């Protein structure tokens, strides 16, 4: 790990749990309240680029994995935020990073995670599709299926 990475983990050591380290991939858990601060540090101070976010449905809830790529060293920093299955809600980072706009819209579309503070949260991929109603999120296991005619 680079010096910048060690500095980052020292600064936020009480906000980060469950660190999984691989040579070029680092995964760690953070709380929903801290994701703004950590994204701010990663993108603005360390100069990382937000590649994409992955939403996953696991047995006890939904989780969102942010992938920040440090292009000078090739290391991925992946903070993980967890939320419940009912009314999932996470703080948006779109006001901070413009590139997160479509990424968060896609997660809202496929998983139904609401992003608090997103300027224009609407569906991205199944928008205006007659087969998918507004609360039908196709990647969820218990999906509110629209009735077929």
């Amino acid at each position, binding site marked *: 790990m680079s010096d910048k990475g060690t500095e980052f983990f020292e600064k936020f050591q009480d906000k980060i749990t469950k660190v999984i380290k691989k040579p070029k991939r680092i995964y760690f858990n953070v709380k929903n309240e801290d994701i703004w601060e950590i994204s701010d540090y990663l993108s603005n101070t360390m100069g990382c680029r937000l590649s994409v976010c992955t939403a996953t449905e696991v047995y006890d809830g939904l989780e969102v994995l942010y992938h920040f790529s440090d292009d000078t060293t090739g290391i991925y920093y992946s903070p993980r935020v967890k939320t419940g299955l009912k009314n999932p809600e996470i703080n948006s980072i779109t006001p901070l990073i413009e590139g997160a706009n479509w990424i968060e819209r896609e997660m809202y579309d496929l998983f139904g995670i609401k992003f608090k503070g997103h300027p224009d949260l609407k569906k991205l991929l*199944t928008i205006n*599709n*007659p*087969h998918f109603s507004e609360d039908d999120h*196709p990647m969820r296991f218990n999906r509110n299926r629209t009735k077929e005619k």
Partner: protein
Amino acid sequence: MAFYNKIIKKSIWVFHVSASPCNNCDIEILDLITPGYDIERFGIKLVGSVRHADVLLVTGIVSYKVAPRIKQLYEQAAKPIFVIGIGTCTAGGATFKTSYNKAGVPLEKVIPVNAYVTGCPPKPEAMIDGVLKLLGTLK
């Protein structure tokens, strides 16, 4: 009708409709009009408006969002119009047969179809062959 069929064989104008494909059949169709194959030699021409077309080349599994538009395009076209499904996707869904957003597998569910050219993607020679075989059936 017989008179029309006799004329259409001389020079057919095709319109390309892309309905949720993987873009591969589309670039192979474009490849047909470039110097490698140059189908304009045979009088086959790619046109920009569906109203000028004699044949529709449809690619891809038709998604629920695009299906009403395909129907609209078919209704707008001057009749008689012939429809050819390019690629295995239009005939059987290929690798997307378990997708949650497929409305037209096979394509007959959306619009009437005259011929299928299968392959993933079909070679340009196969597409030319498909179009000419369809013309051969007209009397």
